[in-house]
């Protein structure tokens, strides 16, 4: 290409390297330095203090609650996401497009507003909350409320990953399965699941990352009781407001670790998908 002369713009070395340099500078200042800062602040008083901060009674409770909330949220949204993706990519029906738009709402709604919506409905003054209160069920300011808002803010992730992929793959393979007499469950397990497993994994990882890190919505409905309804992000805020920066960053470094793990899995998944697609395209080249 190069020997035939310059055919695309921006390939002269000076433009190329100054753009790359500028991009690297941006990434370093905006992303790398903040990341380094989290860990360096967490360890600024030594490893022993870092460990003490992490094994503090309230921190341990916050970690436990956060994992518990994620453990409930992820499966709920996994099941819902698969059903919704199956519905909108495998069938035609009136209102299909509206359904796809509806599912995006949690992305557009401010987390504080999301929390408020639940508080108004299920809080002691809300019309469902009052009815539940009479039956001694309290959802807000306790863990069920936290789970509910977390399910709300994370519900688009799985469906969003699956829909474009399943649309692209089409339904021929599954239809062939039906012709051969496969049941619905066999169809899903033997044909659909292998095709979508990586996207599904990525959807789950994203859901988990957001479920673990949600702050705005959870802080409206949690009541922020230390050692009771404090999730890890709320705990970070509490410590920070108490001027315990080292403690706050110790907890923050845990969350940052989960974020880095998320990015790692995302890259691996994308790499797998690229390879799968490449394999598929060379195979179809050979057959034609």
């Amino acid at each position, binding site marked *: 290409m190069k020997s035939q002369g310059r055919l695309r713009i921006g390939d002269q070395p000076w433009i190329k390297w100054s753009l790359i340099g500028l991009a690297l500078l941006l990434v370093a200042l905006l992303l790398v330095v903040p990341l380094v800062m989290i860990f360096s602040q967490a360890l600024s008083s030594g490893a022993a203090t870092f460990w003490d901060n992490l094994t503090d009674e309230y921190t341990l409770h916050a970690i436990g609650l956060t994992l518990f909330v994620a453990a409930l949220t992820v499966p709920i949204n996994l099941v819902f996401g698969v059903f919704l993706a199956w519905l909108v990519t495998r069938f035609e029906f009136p209102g299909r497009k509206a359904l796809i738009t509806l599912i995006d709402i949690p992305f557009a709604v401010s987390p504080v507003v999301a929390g408020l919506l639940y508080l108004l409905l299920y809080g002691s003054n809300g019309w469902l909350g009052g009815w539940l209160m009479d039956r001694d069920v309290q959802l807000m300011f306790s863990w069920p409320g936290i789970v509910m808002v977390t399910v709300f803010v994370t519900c688009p992730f799985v469906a969003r990953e699956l829909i474009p992929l399943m649309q692209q793959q089409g339904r021929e393979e599954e239809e062939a399965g039906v012709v051969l007499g*496969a049941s619905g469950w066999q169809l899903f397990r033997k044909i659909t699941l292998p095709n979508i497993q990586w996207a599904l994994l990525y959807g789950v990882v994203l859901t988990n990352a957001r479920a673990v890190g949600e702050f705005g919505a959870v802080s409206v409905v949690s009541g922020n009781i230390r050692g009771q309804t404090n999730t890890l992000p709320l705990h970070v805020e509490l410590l920070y407001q108490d001027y315990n920066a080292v403690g706050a960053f110790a907890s923050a470094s845990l969350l940052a670790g989960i*974020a880095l793990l998320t990015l790692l899995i995302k890259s691996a998944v994308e790499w797998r998908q690229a390879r799968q697609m490449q394999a598929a395209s060379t195979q179809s080249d050979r057959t034609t």
Partner: protein
Amino acid sequence: MSELSGGRWSPFQRNPGKRVLPGFALSMGVSLLFISLILLLPVTGLIVQTAGMSWEQYWGVITDERVVASYKVTLWAAAIASLFNGIAGLLLAWVLVRYEFPGKRLIDALIDLPFALPTAVAGITLAALFAQNGWYGQLLTELGIKVAFTPLGIVVAMSFTSLPFVVRTVQPVLEDLPVEDEEAAVSMGASDLTVFRRILFPSLWPALMTGIALSFTRSLGEFGAVIFIAGNMPYVSEITSLMIFIRLQEFDYGAASAIASVVLIASLVLLLAINLWQARYLRRLHGR
């Protein structure tokens, strides 16, 4: 409906073609139930709450001087942040698509860090970086620029949390751009700038605008990252999400939901506009 979900049903029996695959009734049921419970029901709580207010009360709350000041701060900061993201995002997408350099895959993975990192963690990290004795704050103070506890801090937090939007919407479009027009223009001796302005930009800008709009919507609702760095001074650096939060802590549910209804309507209108815009753009791209 049972014949659609049952495994024994054969596509050859009757009405072949349309709904060959099983699970329509089941996935429709699960999706509608979930969407009604998780998405639609909570919105009724807000409607009931605001319906209880008289029009004068409602208007009084949402046009309160301090609340109006918060709209202005939020809108301005989000506008500047998404504009910055438009430029920075285009640069990053360009460099990642067009050039090869060491560490490229790492940077590509890091771009999503703001999505993966919990907003509370981003908030305390940016606040600590830009504080007067922080790594960035020290340098900026010498230059006479104050970021922490000013509206500029809000801009920084908003652009951090929504940076990936522009990169991830522009990147695929840039990858799929046809080479021919560009090659023809270059071989006829057009300058880089002319080729970019006349040939590449017209195909890029719808994606760029979508990315900027998504970034703007996200910035409007951002809470966790902003409140730590903003200083939260009434009339100066108080965002609308925080206004809702403050009204809630005063147990003024009516005022909180009135302000929230404004935010909710604004974000839904924006979401709808982005979706319509995307549909129109895709139609044009694929030839009606």
